[in-house]
């Protein structure tokens, strides 16, 4: 990692818990990563891995019984977790924008898309009403919506799923944020529309000089869009590194298994499945959460969570079986 460039977003030891029945269940557990200027970090994990909750924690949108228990979220050098709510409101949208998964529910059905794009700019005091209206048309044009001056008066139900996702992207970039968090932005879409939206996100990143945290369960999407990848399992970040290196030589047994389980056409008919399932938060094992499903598990994996270890330029892994720590002990 180049120490001379301070990251745009620096998440340090973030821990978010759910207070349930007198217990604090660690849904995000000691997660650290950074997003540098201009790059896209792909955050991968299955359902329940804590990847979306990590995003909500960064924006401080966690609802009770969820609670951010500890850690720091440095954005442009300021700790977001220490900001007063009033300041935080300025960061949301204008500093960090969020693109949701469900374009059907993320838009308000009773306002035109133009109103909704303009609203963010008005709330942040970035434009007058007339300017905001004009900018809304420009933004729709930027996200490749045909006939933007007509579409701006449409209501969400008049648009297809792909068009709605374009509107959400227009809303996200309206206030010129420096970081966009896209939470499964194409999961609800058909594959041809998904390809268009992913192309658009890449284009927007160039045009508006954006950094991006792209959350997805699909390794194909991450491979095509991210510069670096962070893999989460049961609330912990298990591996992180440049996307090419991690895909070429995955270190963590979970990353290996995940890559191996992707159907790849012609190869034999049986898939390489990971036996068992992700443990529920209430039944997380004491040691490494992946140990019960791991083919390489060592006795010590059952006893304590492995520490984070450096295993190469910009690469870290949290695993006894594959980190230098296993040799030391």
């Amino acid at each position, binding site marked *: 990692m180049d120490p001379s460039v301070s990251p745009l977003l620096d998440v340090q030891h973030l821990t978010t818990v759910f207070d349930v029945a007198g217990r604090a269940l660690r849904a995000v557990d000691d997660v650290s990563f950074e997003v540098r200027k201009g790059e896209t970090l792909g955050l991968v994990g*299955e*359902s329940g891995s804590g990847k979306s909750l990590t995003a909500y924690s960064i924006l401080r949108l966690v609802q009770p019984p969820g609670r951010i228990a500890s850690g720091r979220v440095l954005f442009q050098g300021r700790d977001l977790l220490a900001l007063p709510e009033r300041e935080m409101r300025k960061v949301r949208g204008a500093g960090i924008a969020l693109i949701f998964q469900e374009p059907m529910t993320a838009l308000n059905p009773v306002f035109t898309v133009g109103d909704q794009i303009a609203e963010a700019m008005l709330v942040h005091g970035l434009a007058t009403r007339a300017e905001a209206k004009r900018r809304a048309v420009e933004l729709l044009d930027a996200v490749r919506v045909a006939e933007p001056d007509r579409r701006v008066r449409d209501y969400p139900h008049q648009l297809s799923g792909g068009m709605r996702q374009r509107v959400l992207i227009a809303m996200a970039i309206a206030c010129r944020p420096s970081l966009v968090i896209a939470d499964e932005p194409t999961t609800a879409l*058909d*594959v*041809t*529309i*998904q*390809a268009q939206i*992913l*192309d658009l996100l890449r284009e927007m990143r160039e045009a508006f000089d954006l950094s991006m945290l792209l959350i997805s*369960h*699909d*390794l*194909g*999407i991450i*491979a*095509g869009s991210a510069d670096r990848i962070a893999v989460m399992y049961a609330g912990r970040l298990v591996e992180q590194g440049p*996307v*090419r290196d991690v*895909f070429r030589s995955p270190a963590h047994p979970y990353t290996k*298994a*995940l*890559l191996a*389980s*992707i*159907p*790849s*056409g*012609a*190869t034999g*008919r*049986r*898939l*390489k*499945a*990971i*036996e068992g*399932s*992700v443990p529920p938060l209430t039944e997380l094992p004491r040691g490494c959460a992946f140990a019960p499903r791991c083919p390489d598990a060592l006795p010590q994996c059952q006893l304590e969570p492995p520490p984070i270890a450096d295993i190469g330029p910009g690469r870290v892994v949290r695993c006894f079986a594959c980190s230098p720590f296993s040799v030391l002990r």
Partner: protein
Amino acid sequence: MPLLTVRNLVKEFSRSRGWWGRPSVVRAVDSVSFSIEPGETFGLVGESGSGKTTTGRCILRLVEPTSGEVRFQDRDVLALSREELRRTRRDMQIVFQDPYSSLNPRMRARTIVEEPLVIHKLGTKTERRERVAELFRLVGLDPAHLDRYPHEFSGGQRQRIGLARALALNPSLIVADEPVSALDVSVQAQVINLLIDLQERLKLTYLFIAHDLRLVEHICDRVAVMYRGRILEMGHTAALFRSPAHAYTRALLSAIPIPDPDTRPTRIEWDASSVDLRLPLRQVDQGHWAAI
């Protein structure tokens, strides 16, 4: 002889337009024809609105088709009486997409799996008990968990319960409608492997309905690509993926994200207005048909 033959299947839905508007007719399935050989896995792929799910339901008559012909084990399915249909349905079962909503939350797993046997009045109480335990083991579940409720199982396990129920009557055809799309990748692979194992052991035939092309490529012998109610291309999986003949198939295949950072797909755009979607299928190669 094919196990299932579908010929010129049509399903129209009428949609009313307000109080005074004349109802408009939507063709969800438009002259669909294909056949499936015993033991084969036939994939029906398409995006939302392509009519793939409606086609599957018409075959089982869960939705009544508007016209066309469905022959199953040489029976004319659309001409069957209620009672005959009920008996025929023993041999063709469906597995639904969403294991969260397709199982009755108030029933124990045991009751869910046993229900088809009760409905068809098969076996004594003891025999059914044994059969249910056997089915549970068959799909890789622990019979000790038979008295649990659906919410006590994970998504993958729930899909196994749905499969056990579908297998209760020893069917020859399973219509699997997006059977793994609600599951995580690692669990998806388990269920796919189970489907493959069961096919070998029980000599099953699958109509596999899916939008995930990677999955379809992996497990189907033959594939039909649907778009707006019509089959635009059909052929052996390897040949169709290697040399797609229809512009839509080419666009669809080029949109699949590739899990390799060094391989960028060459994206092919699809423009429905540039193609005549009404063209009939014609043979472009041995067993390979396209509407071009």
